[in-house]
């Protein structure tokens, strides 16, 4: 089975004619040492025989389990790990067990850690309040496959953006819609689809998160839906499939 090539989504414009890939495999950890968090994550696409560097994924693999890889080949970026660099890239940990495999550094330097641009700042740093004119606005949080975990240094950052906006505009309603990508898809020789129940779990989790951040109950409305379609979601970085697995936070004035 070949890696599934994703149709270039209209919203991702133009952008990119770069090849996107989607496949399932067991991850490989390469034990490079360029300081903290510098180890490499590699993923072999069994169908095409190519090795990809998925180290830039916000959620990194677990060497005990299969991963679903979704990403775009960054042809002009050299890997410090070995393999074609995927950027942007998402890796979702699946429940199927894998044999652990760790490679030595073999001369690869690994990725020296730099703080990702999407990082939540401490509470001591004052957020810039939104400036008028205000209008209805929708924020998206994007999730790993079949997961409802707010991804560190991705979704928490986007949630922080949303709550800063909400606090600034004092909306009449905040509608939280959880989506599940329930339409079956063929990936690496198997059919995958998200559990429909994850849509509700995502909505309730983000609803609780907003409550904890100060959105009053009476302004919150929760919904959940299946058969999600791709949208232009900042957190998906132009990748269509991850944008289906999301929560929409609609802020209505």
């Amino acid at each position, binding site marked *: 089975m070949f890696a599934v090539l994703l149709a270039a989504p209209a919203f991702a414009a133009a952008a990119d004619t770069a090849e996107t890939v989607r496949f399932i495999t067991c991850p490989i*950890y390469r*034990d490079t*040492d360029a*300081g*903290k*968090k*510098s*180890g490499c*994550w590699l993923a072999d696409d069994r169908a095409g025989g190519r090795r990809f560097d998925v180290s830039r994924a*916000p*959620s*990194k*693999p*677990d*060497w*005990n389990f299969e991963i679903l890889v979704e990403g775009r080949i960054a042809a002009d970026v050299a890997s410090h790990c070995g393999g074609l660099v995927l950027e942007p890239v998402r890796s979702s940990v699946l*429940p199927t067990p894998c044999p652990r495999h*760790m490679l030595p550094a073999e001369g690869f330097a690994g990725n020296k850690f730099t703080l990702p641009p999407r990082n*939540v700042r*401490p*509470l*001591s740093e004052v957020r810039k309040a939104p400036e008028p004119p205000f209008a209805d606005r929708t924020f998206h949080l994007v999730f790993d496959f079949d*997961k409802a*975990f*707010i*991804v*560190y*240094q991705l*979704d*928490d950052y986007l*949630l*922080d953006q949303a709550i800063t906006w909400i606090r600034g505009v004092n909306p009449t309603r905040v509608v939280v819609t959880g989506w599940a990508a329930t339409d079956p898809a063929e990936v690496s020789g198997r059919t995958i689809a998200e559990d429909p129940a994850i849509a509700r779990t995502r909505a309730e*989790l983000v609803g*609780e*998160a907003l409550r*904890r*951040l100060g959105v009053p109950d009476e302004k919150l409305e929760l919904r959940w839906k299946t058969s999600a379609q791709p949208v232009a979601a900042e957190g998906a970085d132009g990748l269509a499939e991850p944008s289906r697995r999301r929560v929409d936070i609609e802020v209505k004035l």
Partner: protein
Amino acid sequence: MIRAAPLVLAAAALAALTSALAAPASRPERWWAPGEGRVFPAELDYENETGTLRTMLVGGPMKTKGHPFFAPIGPNGRACVTCHQPADSMSLSAQTAQERWTATNGRDPLFAAGDGSNCPTLPQATRASHSLLLDHGLIRIQRSWPPKDLTGKAITPDFTIETVRDPWGCNTGAKYGPAAASPNVSVYRRPRPISNLKYLLAVGFAYDPKQGMPLPLDPESGRPMSGNLMADGRAGTLNAQMRDAASTHLEFLKNMSARDMARIVYFESRLFSAQIRDRRGGALDAGGAEGGPDKLARSQPGNLGSQGPAPVWSEFAAWEKPDPSLTPEQSAFRQSVARGARSFREKMFLISDSAGINSPIGFGNPVRNSCVFCHNMTQMGNDVAPGQVDLGTTTQPFADPAPHLPLFRITCRRDPHPHYGRVIYTSDPGYALTTGRCADVGKITLQSMRGLAARAPYFSNGSAKDLRAVVDYYDRRYRIGYTEQEKQDLVNLMSAL
């Protein structure tokens, strides 16, 4: 004269009190008994194996007579101070427990049947019935099962718990254990220090990345909670902790008054403890170093060492440069501490299969990092984020053999645990006893690293008898490969905190 006499008496009385408040005895009694009425001085020093621990009470001395932290408010004769002793960095060492046993022939309220013995059903007069406290510094903690959330609503756990081994009978039978008429689970844990609390209560960020959620809110105040109190996170505020402790450890059957709780919070918030002198290295705040409690009292809590203003344990950075004026022994110790601090931050190793680190946060399993990855708060070494992490100290196969502790079999009903699978064997499920989640089994809240020299043994279950055993555990658990020199440097660093 007639008018002057009361003034003279008042002045004399004031002078006596001032003298009592300002000039503590040079060698204060180590044990603080409930209700004894001593004055708590502004600075209180106690010797320990490696040097001297200092506890500061910011704002000056305090009379303890009638103070709710020091008064035996319940029927068992204990007070908060019973298990939070100044000489033990406001915790309780196993050595102190042994000294009390010897001094009182086991009659001290510390050895109350409820939790100062291995189980209340055992004959209380024998030492063997208190062996967990005497040999391992452990207090019995009885959690109701299933747990309740912060609002008191029952949680439906996603796992079952069965007792596999019960050496003391407190997890089987009609009254005790998960199969009892009113189900409960007894685990055994070290008392946590209650000084330097501003660091444990600090809220640096709005989010708990380990749980993937904003911090939970205190139902009383509506404010976010740090998540760094108590081994299993069952209380998020000092008020909640006090209610829990008063009703269990003190057997106080009424609610503590708001005034008493406020007095305790005020006292605890002024307490700062740290080692101030080392027998080999001398003053820990000399030669440019900033050890000791004064720096703690003056510093802002909640800073992530990696983002400034100062890296973790940079208090000892000045000791990296040799000082020719020192004795060889002093010089060797100081440089060892400075190396230990650097090693703590910079010695990288692979962290694997540790929930709270390798799952579900997304760092990957494994992830390369150092001690400071989790012990990341400047000045204190606890976690800026809520610090519920599974190091494996209580859970097989990583835990050291502990035949003196109960063993539970956890069976996950829905998703298996991300690292242990569906069936887990543990002597303390930790945070899972609070959340009811299988994924949280074995997670224990990181704690302050200050005053360690005064409060052995270590880890929540007392499994490390000394600081070397702490380093050895990490070395085994994560195959770090420390050299002998690196191990000694880390031990020296931790002894200087």
